[in-house]
């Protein structure tokens, strides 16, 4: 016993050092995959408040550009209103739609804190559970996909962006509907890559990449980017498809959170699949 105490005394400094390292590394590894509480993230109230003050100053820096983008989106939507169209037939027609039911609703939000240069980049939004945001909802902007909600507090949420290690959004390359998984290698915030595309398939350069909408997180057809380069991977029968993102995440401000009305039904149905196949289907 005395020896033990003497030992502990002798290596006291190193032991404290090691335990502090272990605490911080365990926190780091755990929180990357399973966020247990909101207090260690920017979704917590105090940090989000301070970041909101900061954002109140800096959000005006890109004001004219952002206004222009919103205006453009407005025009695109207004063009589809019936008042803006020329009537070809004089008769009034009222359509009671029984074929389509709305599946996705959208919650508008604003990015108050973001990073693009780290290995795993998270964006903080100024909307939270009060506005109906829940973890695992999709987030996109008018130009492209942004990420998946990771952690929610009352008034704020943290989004795991497409610029993280295992974001794994399922996407398709457009004209031939090739399905793959979106990844990011941590080098360039303007480019990502698609995994799992067999190298006997022909892919055209600059073909559009959109979301597949398979897991119910995103609706189908939200733009991701364009195919910039196709490289072969050594020793594997797969292409490494480099995608140039259509959204510039360095200046991102206005985003929409996707709420899927039917997600519970889908999960319930998918939960009935025997457990060993479950891993392939749940994202």
């Amino acid at each position: 016993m005395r020896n033990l105490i003497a030992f502990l005394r002798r290596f006291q400094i190193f032991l404290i050092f090691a335990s502090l390292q272990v605490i911080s590394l365990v926190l780091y590894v755990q929180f990357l995959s399973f966020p247990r509480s909101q207090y260690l993230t920017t979704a917590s109230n105090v940090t989000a408040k301070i970041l909101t003050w900061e954002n109140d100053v800096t959000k005006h820096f890109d004001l004219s550009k952002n206004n222009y983008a919103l205006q453009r989106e407005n025009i695109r939507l207004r063009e589809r209103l019936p008042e803006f169209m020329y009537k070809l037939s004089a008769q009034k027609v009222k359509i009671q739609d029984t074929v389509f039911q709305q599946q996705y609703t959208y919650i508008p939000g604003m990015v108050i804190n973001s990073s693009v240069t780290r290995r795993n980049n998270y964006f903080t939004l100024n909307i939270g559970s009060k506005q109906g945001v829940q973890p695992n909802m999709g987030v996109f902007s008018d130009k492209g996909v942004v990420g998946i909600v990771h952690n929610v507090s009352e008034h704020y949420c943290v989004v795991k962006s497409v610029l993280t290690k295992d974001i794994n959004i399922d996407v398709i390359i457009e004209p031939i509907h090739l399905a793959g998984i979106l990844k990011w290698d941590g080098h360039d915030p303007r480019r990502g890559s698609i995994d799992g595309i067999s190298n006997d398939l022909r892919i055209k350069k600059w073909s559009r990449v959109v979301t597949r909408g398979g897991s119910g997180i995103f609706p189908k057809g939200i733009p991701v980017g364009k195919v910039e380069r196709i490289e072969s991977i050594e020793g594997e029968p797969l292409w490494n498809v480099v995608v140039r993102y259509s959204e510039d995440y360095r200046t991102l401000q206005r985003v929409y959170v996707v709420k899927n009305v039917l997600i519970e039904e889908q999960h319930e149905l998918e939960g009935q699949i025997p457990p060993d196949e479950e891993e392939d289907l749940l994202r």
Partner: protein
Amino acid sequence: MNNLTKNIIRFFVFVLLQTLIFNQLEIGYGFHLMIHPLFIMLLPFEMGVISLMGLAFLMGIIIDIFSNTYGLHASSLVMMAYFRPIVFKFYGPREGYDPLKEPNVFDMGNRWFTFVFGILLLTHHLWFFLIEIFQFNQLFFILQKTIFSAVPSFLICLLLQSFLIKKSKTK
């Protein structure tokens, strides 16, 4: 102003500078400015390693909360705090350090500061990117990021000292 209040104020100044200004500067190409290690460097000479590591851990966790890194900054700051006394001993004068002086560039001279802070900052950055990327086949990328971030961080730390320290000395 006594030493304790000075360091408490510095603590908050460095945390706010890092989180609200330097974390928001996204230059790309692997540049990642981190100036908060300067706080650990500027703590008094006679401070023990354990309290150093405690402070480093606290500061790291606060910065982690602001940048969603959950312990990455804390780990690398504790690493730096652990090596601080070792490097100080190695480069120290034979009769020991003058407790009235502070380990900044004005009191200790350019040469000493460049060596000691350079080594500590490199340790900090190397550990930070090693843990963040954690893929050994990307060793070149880790080293590139370390050098690209450590050199500008070092220069900004030199500049910051003339803002933060000279003023507090004249008061």
